[in-house]
């Protein structure tokens, strides 16, 4: 790791002030994306702003027709939360398959979303449910938030505070895990909330999480695996590496979408 100055503010406002004055400063949440990147010397933050002492960022609550999750909520908290399990089992399931148990004890939803790893799980839920990212400055709709791999709509000095998920009647997440890393080779989140149908895919696209509008159209008549039987998506724009070709990933998108629909 390169050297950095360590800061541990007590409030979001203090954190934002440090961040606004120094564009090379970085927020530290659980550290399970940032620290590995720093160890590889792929990131060289001048300052680390640890949110570990900021109160009130890890709440999980039901607000009207939404579940609102604080940015510092750990994956294990979301997976085990009675509120999430009751209102939104698909989201609890997703949080429960991120990484491994020790990783889930540290990793946070805010960290995952700020990092926007193209193989991470949470982006699929956020886009697949049309959630809203609430920062210290504004509210950002999921459709406007993800800007390609490791890139988001967050501006300098902006910190994710919480994420608001509208409760969907039907929702499910299915992922094809990379057998070594546990990351999604392909993960598909499907949801239906009134007439709003969403199919969001993580892991597969070379530009990060994306929606499959052709599947969403086909599901309008009936929200069932049958409606997209035999459908595939084009292989262009899919990731290709030693773990799977673009064609293979494109194929898996259909398979995982049907499995998710069968469970939803």
């Amino acid at each position, binding site marked *: 790791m390169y050297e950095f100055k360590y800061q541990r503010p007590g409030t979001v406002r203090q954190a934002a002030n440090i961040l606004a004055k120094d564009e090379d400063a970085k927020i530290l949440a659980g550290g399970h994306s940032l620290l590995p990147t720093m*160890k590889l010397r792929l990131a060289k933050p001048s300052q680390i702003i640890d949110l570990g002492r900021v109160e009130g960022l890890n709440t999980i609550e039901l607000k009207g027709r939404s579940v609102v999750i604080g940015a510092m909520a750990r994956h294990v908290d979301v997976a085990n939360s009675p509120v999430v399990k009751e209102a939104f089992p698909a989201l609890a399931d997703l949080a429960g398959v991120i990484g491994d148990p020790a990783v889930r004890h540290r990793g946070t939803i805010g960290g995952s979303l700020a990092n926007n790893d193209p193989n991470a799980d949470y982006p699929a839920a956020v886009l697949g449910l049309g959630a809203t990212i609430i920062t210290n400055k504004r509210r950002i709709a999921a459709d406007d938030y993800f800007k390609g791999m490791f890139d988001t709509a967050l501006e300098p000095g902006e910190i994710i505070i919480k994420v608001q998920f509208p409760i969907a009647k039907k929702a499910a997440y299915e992922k094809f895990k990379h057998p070594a890393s546990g990351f999604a080779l392909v993960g598909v989140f499907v949801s239906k909330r009134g007439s709003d149908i969403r199919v969001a895919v993580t892991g597969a696209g070379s530009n990060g999480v994306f929606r499959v509008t052709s599947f969403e159209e086909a599901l309008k008549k009936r929200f069932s695996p049958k409606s997209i039987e035999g459908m595939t998506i084009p292989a262009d724009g899919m990731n290709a590496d030693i773990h799977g070709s673009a064609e293979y990933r494109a194929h898996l998108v259909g398979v995982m979408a049907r499995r998710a629909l069968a469970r939803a």
Partner: protein
Amino acid sequence: MPAVSLTVNGKPVTADVDPRTLLVQFLREHLRLTGTHVGCDTSQCGACVIHLDGVAVKSCTTLVMQADGGNVLTIEGLAAADGPLHPMQEAFRENHGLQCGFCTPGMVMTAVDMVRRKGNDLDERTIREELDGNLCRCTGYHNIVKAIAAGAKAMKA
């Protein structure tokens, strides 16, 4: 250099550290508690698992500053140096759950955390799934799974 204070295996520790110091480095290099190992340094192998405030954590992916004020338990603190082994350690010995032993501290700490979360009756499937974040290059896991099932039961007694 910022100061860090934490409790390690029941003893209070205070030190001035370079903020880059990882929790595992602090344990091994500053405190000379070398039972916690570094296998991969990339959050995959679980050789570095310790308990931070009661839950299993990969200490290679945690800054010691993040543990400031916290309570750390390492393999050295599981049982008194001059007393009997912890039931989970005893079960690993009894079931031949280790060969070279490199992964073992992390396996044992993960296993004890597994019991905390999943109880004393662990079936094979649960154990294998829960070992997702721990790699062993020697044993083929079979005896580790047996050891954890036996150790979990013994922890109830």
